[in-house]
């Protein structure tokens, strides 16, 4: 794996099920330190793309590479050293404390023959909790927390995994404005550290315009547009993408797309 290779590369990736093509063929590259937002209507294939890149689905054609190495030749445990995933759908009841959930992110680093995690593992957990800003919740049971706090715990677990590629599926869904803001700040901070490549599927165009370096617009499993936030988050592209009118709202020096609710 040479540094010259992009962190992530999808080449002619396709995924089919039941004779229907859900995604692709699709080409995509992500460099380390880059944040890419994936937008598109429901059923466009966003989650499928994320699961392919997380190694949870095998493409039916094409290939996904991590720093030049094709996924099938990377054992699952080693892939988990590099790629961390925060799915949108998770079990409703998880009988663990926040710290236990975050410690689970350390699994790929733990030895089967050691009974307890090492000091380095606990240090990574502490750092992840601090970065996400939920250190004070670490002994609380996940079941007792709000949706936003749970989301934060899963993001912390993914950070504790210490991969270079972070995959987030709808990270702001179910979050109230305060937690949306918290998550957006977190993504900006991660982006500034330039350590992670981030791939986030979202319906939150405001979030995408604020934290993403580039935006990928997916429709019916194909790339409708891929480019800088200014290029993609324009009313013209968004109207083609979602079949509904948008306009731009000035926010400081930037323009933010908003949904046109009144005709």
């Amino acid at each position: 794996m040479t540094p010259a290779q992009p962190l992530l590369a999808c080449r002619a990736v396709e995924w089919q099920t039941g004779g229907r093509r859900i995604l692709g063929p699709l080409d995509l590259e992500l460099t380390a330190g880059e944040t890419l937002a994936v937008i598109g209507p429901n059923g466009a294939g966003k989650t499928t793309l994320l699961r392919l890149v997380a190694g949870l689905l095998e493409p039916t054609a094409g290939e996904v590479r991590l720093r030049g190495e094709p996924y099938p030749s990377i054992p699952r445990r080693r892939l988990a050293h590099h790629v961390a995933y925060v799915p949108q759908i998770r079990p409703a009841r998880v009988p663990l404390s926040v710290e236990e959930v975050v410690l689970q992110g350390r699994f790929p680093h733990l030895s089967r023959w050691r009974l307890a995690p090492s000091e380095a593992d606990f240090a990574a957990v502490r750092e992840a909790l601090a970065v996400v800003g939920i250190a004070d919740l670490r002994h609380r049971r996940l079941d007792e927390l709000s949706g936003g706090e749970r989301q934060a715990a899963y993001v912390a677990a993914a950070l504790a995994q210490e991969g270079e590629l972070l995959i987030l599926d709808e990270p702001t869904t179910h979050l109230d404005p305060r937690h949306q803001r918290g998550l957006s700040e977190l993504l900006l901070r991660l982006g500034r550290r330039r350590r992670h490549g981030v791939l986030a599927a979202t319906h939150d165009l405001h979030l995408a315009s604020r934290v993403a370096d580039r935006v990928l617009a997916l429709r019916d499993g194909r790339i409708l547009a891929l480019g800088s936030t200014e290029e993609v988050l324009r009313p013209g592209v968004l109207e083609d993408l979602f079949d509904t009118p948008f306009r731009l709202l000035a926010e400081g020096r930037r323009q933010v797309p908003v949904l046109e609710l009144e005709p």
Partner: protein
Amino acid sequence: MSRESRGLGILPWLVAGWLAALLLAPLVGSHSLDPTAVFGGDATTATIFWQLRLPRVLLALLAGGALSVAGLSYQTLFRNDLAEPYTLGVAVGAALGAVLAIRFGLQEVLGLPAVGAASFVGALAASSVVYGLAHRRRGGGGSTLLLAGIAVSLSATAVILFVQYSSDSTQTYRMVRWTMGGLAVVGYREVLWLLPWVVAGCGLLVTLRRELNLLLTGEELAASRGVDLGRLQRWVLGGASAMVGALVAVAGPIGFVGLMVPHILRRWVGHDHLRLIPACWLAGGAFLVVCDTAARLVLAPAELPVGIVTALLGGPFFLWLIFTDRGR
């Protein structure tokens, strides 16, 4: 750290309860034994203690522990509170093997009683079929496996009823008696046969404790953290089913232990399998010894099959599960 401290408090009590079951249960029965007589040279008392009761208690400790640990592993693997050797078809597969051996009058296979050997094979065959069925559907998750288990159970039960119907009354009596499960007529041979299976099965499951813990946050996250789900399912299902098969071969199917013990223990010990597995093993063993002692006392000098006692407790326990918030 809560993870480190929680549940440690109860482990010494479980060890104490386990030792108490081991030492006290052999003294109790239709004939109470005086401990001083056991060690004091009374030949009859010593024979009852060492040759009749102690092996039976040892077998109950092993069997109860194995059933509880297997039930715990199935529940975590399938993320379903109702998974246990019974609901997954493993015990019914064993029963089918035994019933066929009785029907065809087999006596011995490779030096083992044929009924035991056939039930062992039946348990492994049932779990292989369940696993195979679930995997014919792509990405078969926990619920698919559980449904496959129920399907195998129903089919095997139908075959058992057919075989019973087509057998003579002596055979039918033996079949019915066997499917009640019991620890009577047991010697050290059965204990020694079961021991390596239980040690290997529980040892394997302890090495998989972190993978089992990861399943608590879902299969998707577990896989993204590096767990090979297919391999984990094969190891857990194979390890636990071999252990259950071995014990059903000597004791017949004993239901509900694998359901009740893990549920109660989770409340006390938490959900870390590093603690839960030994805790379930200790508590399950002691629990089955208590049930078996009750089975020996209720109709003394006659005795009840222990499977009836555990089933009597299992019904109300199911209701308790339904009417409390234990459903996931």
